[in-house]
């Protein structure tokens, strides 16, 4: 073995060169490649209305993924997001049955999401319980409550005005969901990369003890992040319920897998500490394009989930295999 010290660079790499070598650049190339492949594979792909429909494949999950990205950057995880969507949707269904109008339905959806997020947040931040088990437990609890309320039934008959969120268009082919997606991308991008709160999130994820000694209220940061994840799940629940026009207790089943996959595919370290929102946006586009392309090729949903599962493991495994083979 030769004694090799740590490589210390003697000059700065230019920002442009760094950007070119970044994970985000790779994702952008992949997104463009899949876009071109899709347009060659199916003549129906390049239709603006088809593309507009394609965005539904990722908008709702990506909204949650932005908040999840910050949570994972801070070194936590929330596996209960799909269950929060189910519970929020069920709560909206109950409100609808009680005669609530659209504004009240939205309020109920948001409030349920926030309450679920606060519940997770209190258990993790206040009582110091590990977030993986807490959210496995609440995943069962939240969806379980939906099952208690609905059994094998469903809520249908949402008011026509409520359909705007999931089925409405702002202008031409730009859907309401796409606008919500873009706005939340901007908000979370600024929050993570341009505010002091974003810096504290990264500090907590890198070294929670050091962060605490630097005067960061670590538990409060964690609580706020769970609250944000709950809120975004509530917004996703509004969009999804509005788009489907019905609520079943199995709604948004398996969302947690796809949301975590988008986040990890976006280059967020699963161990916490690093990751960017632009990366998550690109990952959402890649996932949306892949699933839509497979859909156009008549690939069944369960086979797509194999692709998603493979992507999740592959994007983490391949860089590690790469560095392992280079260090030999």
């Amino acid at each position: 073995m030769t004694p090799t010290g740590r490589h210390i660079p003697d000059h700065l790499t230019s920002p442009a060169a760094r950007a070119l070598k970044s994970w985000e650049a790779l994702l952008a190339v992949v997104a463009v490649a899949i876009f071109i492949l899709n347009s060659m594979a199916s003549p129906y792909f390049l239709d603006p209305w088809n593309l507009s429909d394609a965005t539904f494949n990722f908008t709702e999950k990506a909204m949650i993924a932005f908040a999840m990205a910050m949570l994972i950057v801070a070194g936590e995880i929330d596996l209960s997001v799909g269950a929060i969507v189910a519970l929020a949707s069920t709560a909206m269904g109950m409100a609808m049955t009680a005669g609530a109008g659209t504004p009240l339905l939205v309020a109920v959806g948001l409030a349920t999401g926030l309450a679920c997020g606060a519940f997770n947040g209190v258990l993790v931040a206040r009582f110091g319980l590990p977030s993986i088990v807490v959210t496995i437990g609440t995943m069962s609890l939240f969806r379980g409550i939906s099952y208690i309320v609905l059994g094998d039934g469903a809520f249908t008959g949402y008011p026509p005005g409520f359909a705007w969120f999931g089925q409405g268009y702002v202008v031409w082919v730009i859907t309401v969901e796409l606008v919500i997606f873009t706005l939340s991308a901007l908000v979370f991008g600024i929050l993570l990369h341009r505010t002091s709160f974003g810096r504290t999130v990264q500090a907590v994820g890198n070294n929670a003890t050091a962060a605490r000694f630097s005067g960061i209220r670590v538990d409060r940061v964690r609580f706020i992040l769970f609250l944000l994840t709950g809120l975004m799940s509530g917004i996703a629940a509004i969009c999804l319920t509005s788009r489907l026009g019905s609520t079943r207790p199995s709604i948004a089943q398996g969302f947690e897998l796809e949301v975590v996959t988008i986040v990890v595919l976006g280059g967020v370290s699963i161990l916490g500490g690093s990751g960017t929102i632009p990366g998550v946006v690109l990952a959402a586009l890649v996932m949306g394009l892949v699933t839509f392309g497979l859909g156009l090729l008549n690939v069944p949903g369960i086979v797509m989930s194999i692709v998603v599962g493979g992507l999740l493991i592959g994007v983490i495994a391949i860089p590690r295999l790469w560095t392992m083979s280079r260090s030999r």
Partner: protein
Amino acid sequence: MNALKSREAILALAILALLAAIASRFPAFVAPANLVRVLNDTSPLILLAMGQMIVIMTKCIDLSIAANLALCGMIAALMNGAGVPLPLILVAVIAIGGALGAVNGLLVWKLGIPSIVVTLGTMTIFRGSIFLLTGGAWINAHQMSEGFKALPRAMLLGLPVMTWIMLALVAAIGLMMTRTPLGRAFLAVGGNPHAAVYAGISVGRTQFAAFVLAGALAGLVGYLWVARYAVAYVDIAGGFELDVVAACVIGGIAIAGGAGTVAGAVMGALFLGIVKNALPVVGISPFWQMAISGAAILAAIAFNASRRTPGRIILKPSEVTP
């Protein structure tokens, strides 16, 4: 006095209290024949909880355990349809289950990917593979041979064979955990990985062994499940991984690794099994079960945390004072 304070004693008392509460209204529930039925019904959960317990002890988690079960169960049903003799099917499902576990284990060991991510991914891959194998078709009772379906239900000395298999494996795993180097290694790796390395234990290899064992158990249960319910399809045991984790957490298996007992995991599973079997008896909709397991997980981890002193105790006071 100490024995009374142990987690296992508290859990045993909780189970007795639960049984007493049910018996006060529905005495038939605690009739020996019904208790045997409940025990048999809970056997798959207990067996999977044994595997999950070992994995959790090594600071990992296996969310793919139910999907592994479903895939192996489907393979067993397909092999039976192809006329493969039963002993060979049993060997095959255990080997395939172990191999699927080895995939998880290798990704965790060789690539250092967190187990939660690995098994979240393999969970969907295993379940999707069932669809690829069958195109979504069901295999029903009339497509299975009598011998294939009969084994888990056959009675031996007053207990079904499935219960005997469970009892034998629980005893074997109990011996392994307390009496073999591998069993102690599982605990050592979870308790303090750095110390384990200095004691000459490979952390990755031990975690790998845990995943293989959990996978092999899931493979065996896959056969038992399909043979007992006499049906195999893509979604069998859907969401069962949550019940298995719940059984372990209720049984006092520390989610941070390094602590837990076979007796605890068995009782955690029994607790859930009794609740599940009692719900229809006391007239509560079975749709309550999911929420009850969730609440039980949360109560159990909160309870565990309240009994643990915060922070890691590196040296006990008695060792510091001269």
